[in-house]
Structure formats: structure tokens, C-alpha cells
């Protein structure tokens, strides 16, 4: 399970279930794919890494809270790297300057600038720790870069980009359907609990009104006797 991870609670999503299913597999098997992805990003968006030079090219822990592993991203302008690390790794041994934690899909939306980082921070869907200046510089650098994960990765496939695109679209449709099904399941499971919470909230509101009225009465009486 990934529930012991720090940061926001992982939402019930296909990503979470896929992460749980993939947990017994050695994550290092995925490392070559991420090596290729970071090289591709470096080729397409060298300005992101150039901008980070002003804060000494930090090393980040990127923690998708719904996956059983995290990433360490080294942002050296000449040779950036993205390394998979197991969630059980002692984070102090990773020597990162900052950590960014949130659900995978939100992190991708943030990377593509489709969602505002400050808004995610205000709503507590995103948690940052460590060197805030480094995090801010990364946010600003990626936000200014017009990154499109789908198209950027397709470019990597060269002549096979078209079939890869079709496969990705099919996978995307399955993912969307599965997400909707999970939301329905989640609502059905939580409905009785939600009803209880709503009833309790109504009782609390009533009690607060009563307490405030009593407080007013006490204040009035003590004013009269003073």
C-alpha cells in the first residue's frame, strides 16, 4: 500500500490501483523508460534546465502519492536525470533540496501548466518541503515552457509516432472510462458515511447557534450587573 506516504492522501483512481498492482514488480525495470523521457524533455525544453541554473540546478524529490515509488530529478543543465526510488527509501539519504508531493495526474497537469501551482498549494492538494526557492524556480520554469507530455513523448517515437498516438488514445479512453466507474463506485461506497457526516454537520451548526445565543445572553447580563 502507499498510504504511509507523506503528503496529501492519494485519491481513489486508476493510478492508485495500477500502483498497487505494480508493487511486487521491481521498479527499476521502468528506469530505461524514464531515462529516455528526461532526455526527451531536455532536448525539447532545454530552457527549463537553463532557468534552474540561477538556483544552482537543484535536486528534487518528486513524489506521486498514488504510486509506490518516487522520483529523484537532478536538474543539471547539461545532463538532467530522473531516477526511480522506492517509497521505503530513507529520504534523508537522497540528498534532495526539496520535495514536491501530490497525485500523479495533478503533477502532470502542473508540468504542462494546465493547472495553477499556487491554487493546488492553497487547496492542500500539493505539498512542498525543503528549499522553497528551488520549488518556485522549477514551477516558474516548467510553467513558462509549454510542455505537452503526450506530444513531447510522441516525438520520441519518430516514424512510429502515429501508431503510438493511436495506442495512447485508446489507453486514454480506457483510463477515462475506468476513472468514471471508480468515481461511481466511490460515491456508492461513501454515500451512507456522507449522509451521517451531513447530519452531524447540521447538529453541530444548531449547537453553535445555541451556544452563540447563550454567550450573548451571558454578556448582556454581565453588562447589566457591572
Amino acid at each position, binding site marked *: 500500500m502507499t498510504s504511509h506516504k*507523506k*503528503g496529501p492522501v492519494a485519491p481513489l483512481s486508476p493510478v492508485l490501483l495500477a500502483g498497487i498492482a505494480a508493487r511486487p514488480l521491481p521498479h527499476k525495470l521502468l528506469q530505461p523508460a524514464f531515462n529516455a523521457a528526461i532526455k526527451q524533455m531536455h532536448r525539447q525544453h532545454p530552457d527549463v534546465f537553463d*532557468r*534552474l541554473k*540561477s*538556483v544552482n540546478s537543484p535536486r528534487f524529490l518528486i513524489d506521486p502519492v498514488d504510486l509506490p515509488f518516487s522520483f529523484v530529478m537532478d536538474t543539471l543543465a547539461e545532463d538532467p536525470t530522473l531516477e526511480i526510488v522506492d517509497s521505503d527509501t530513507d529520504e534523508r539519504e537522497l540528498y534532495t533540496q526539496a520535495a514536491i508531493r501530490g497525485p500523479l495526474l495533478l503533477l502532470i497537469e502542473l508540468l504542462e*501548466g*494546465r*493547472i*495553477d*501551482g*499556487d*491554487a493546488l*498549494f*492553497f*487547496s*492542500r492538494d500539493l*505539498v*512542498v*518541503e*525543503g*528549499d*522553497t*526557492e*528551488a*520549488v*518556485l*524556480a*522549477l*514551477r*516558474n*520554469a516548467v*510553467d*513558462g*515552457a*509549454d510542455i505537452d507530455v503526450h506530444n513531447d513523448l510522441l516525438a520520441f517515437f519518430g516514424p512510429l509516432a502515429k501508431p503510438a498516438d493511436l495506442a495512447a488514445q485508446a489507453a486514454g479512453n480506457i483510463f477515462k472510462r475506468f476513472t468514471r466507474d471508480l468515481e461511481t463506485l466511490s460515491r456508492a461506497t461513501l454515500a451512507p458515511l456522507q449522509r451521517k457526516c451531513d447530519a452531524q454537520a447540521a447538529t453541530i451548526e444548531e449547537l453553535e447557534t445555541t451556544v452563540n445565543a447563550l454567550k450573548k445572553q451571558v454578556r448582556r447580563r454581565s453588562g447589566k450587573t457591572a
Partner: protein
Amino acid sequence: MKTEKLELVCPAGTPAALRAAVDAGADTVYCGFRDATNARNFPGLNFSREELGEGIEYARSHGSKVLVALNTYPEAGNPDPWHKAVEDAADLGAHALIMADLGLLAYAAEKRPDTRRHLSVQASASNPDAINYYKNTFDVKRVVLPRVLTVPEIAALNREIDVETEVFVFGGLCVMAEGRCSLSSYATGQSPNMNGVCSPASHVRYEDKGNKMVSKLGDFTINSFKESEAAGYPTLCKGRFVTQDKASYLFEDPTSLNAAQYLPELMEAGVTALKIEGRQRGKAYIAQVVAAFRKAADAAANGEAVPPLGLERITEGQRETTGAYNKRWQ
């Protein structure tokens, strides 16, 4: 005199944000160079000379204008970066320069008289005498009003000045001491007035303390948020402090200004332009807020009701206020 159509002045911290603002319907975009000459000098933010030139060209080709904020106060004995910024912005074709410092206004008026001068909110000019002084001395064409005035006060002010007025309608709020606030300097040695940055990120830390998140600025713990509580910016003015055994926001709640409902009244009051705060925000925020205010400003110009904007989720602390526009205190 009543305004027929309000100009929408929108923020951009990156070239991508500038394009997002223009595409979403901004009449005007304001931005700054990547240094201490502007009050949003954050890491990774702002424009190189080349990027600004491209941005101005992009805006112009879409019928929009670009203003350049040079709204910090030059260091004593080191005015050159600010003078160079005036020269470069004018050379690149900026529609106007937004400035607060008297010396910099004098320099721009003398050396680049053909480039419009706007008075920054950082100058905190809020009465006819002050504004007319800037107008008569430096031929300032527009003044950005501090966020301390009610709509009737703005109307009264506009009757006594012959300068365009621009007012904030959305985004972060200061504690109404713009250009004079020393809280950030006190805690970190750096301020928006001199260094272009309030509560610099290099001095901010967030710490996970189990069921709460603690924010620190320099040596000061300034807030502690429970697990599901909406957070705000780590500035001292929005810190939560304990007095008489009770923790509360002594200066200001973490909340965003939203004055959309006052657009018809601001038109009646003779306001020329509406300013959206947020050069530090991402392009997604810029696109969403600008598009919403485009609709609102167009509705107001057509005499229609201003539609609900639906921007609560992206506001600071996820709360909104009408700020001083509806203040009931003196």
C-alpha cells in the same frame, strides 16, 4: 465622467503567461524584467530583453499592449540597472512604464518623453494633491490607485484629477501600506520596495508536523494549517499570531480580492482600467481569470449584469473579499 468600456490590464510572469493573457482577451499585459527593477523578482520568473521584445510583438499582433513595471525604488548610488531598464523597455516598444520612484520618473520623463508613464500603486498616491503633483511634474498619464478607497471615494477623486485611473479588481491584497511596508524587510532583510520581493522564497520553509503544516519566514513561525484547512501565502501580514491565548489573523486574512460586482459602479466613477494581480501565478490561472474578467467587463460595458466568475477554487485561502470597495470603517 462615465467610462464607456473598461480596459483589462492583466499580469504575466513568463512569455507563456503573456500569450495566455492575450489569447484570453487582455487589452493590456504588464510584466517586468528578470531583476530587482520590478516588484515580482522571484526565481525563474520574468522576462529577458529578448523575451520582452517577442512578447510585445505577440501582443501587438493581437491588438494588445504591453506595460513594463519598473516599480521598485533604485538603490542609493546604483541607479544604472533602473535607468537601463527604462531605456530598454522604451527601445523594445513598451506602451508605458509603471514607476513609483520620483527619481526614476524624472529620468524617464527627461530621457524617454515619448513613452507613457504610469504611476505604480507602490507610490501610494491616493489624493488629488499627490496625483496632480505627479501629473504636473512628470506628465504621468495614469495612476494605479492603492487598495484603500471606496467606490464613492474613487468617483470623488476622479472629479478632481485629469489623469486616467486604474484599480485592482482581482488577486492578492496587501495590508494597504503599499510602498511603505517593512514587514518583509524586518523578517528577511528583503522587501518588495527595494529588492522586488515580499517574503522571498529563499527565506520560506514549509514543515510537515504530522497533522498540520507549519510555514516559516526566516526565524518566524507565521502559520500552522490543519490537515484540510486552505492555506495562504507565507507573508507576515497574513500570518496567524497568538494573542490572549487565541491564534488569529491580526493584520489580514488569507483571501483574494474580487471586485467583479463593482464593475458598473467603477465605470460610473470614471475609472479607465481594471488591474488583475498575479504575475507570480501560473499561465492556467492567468487564462482562467482573464477570460472571466473579459466576460465581466464586456457585460458591464453592454449594461448587462456581471455574471458569476467561478474563481473561488484558485483564490488565496479559497476565499474572496470585496476589500476596501465596500469598507465601512475610516
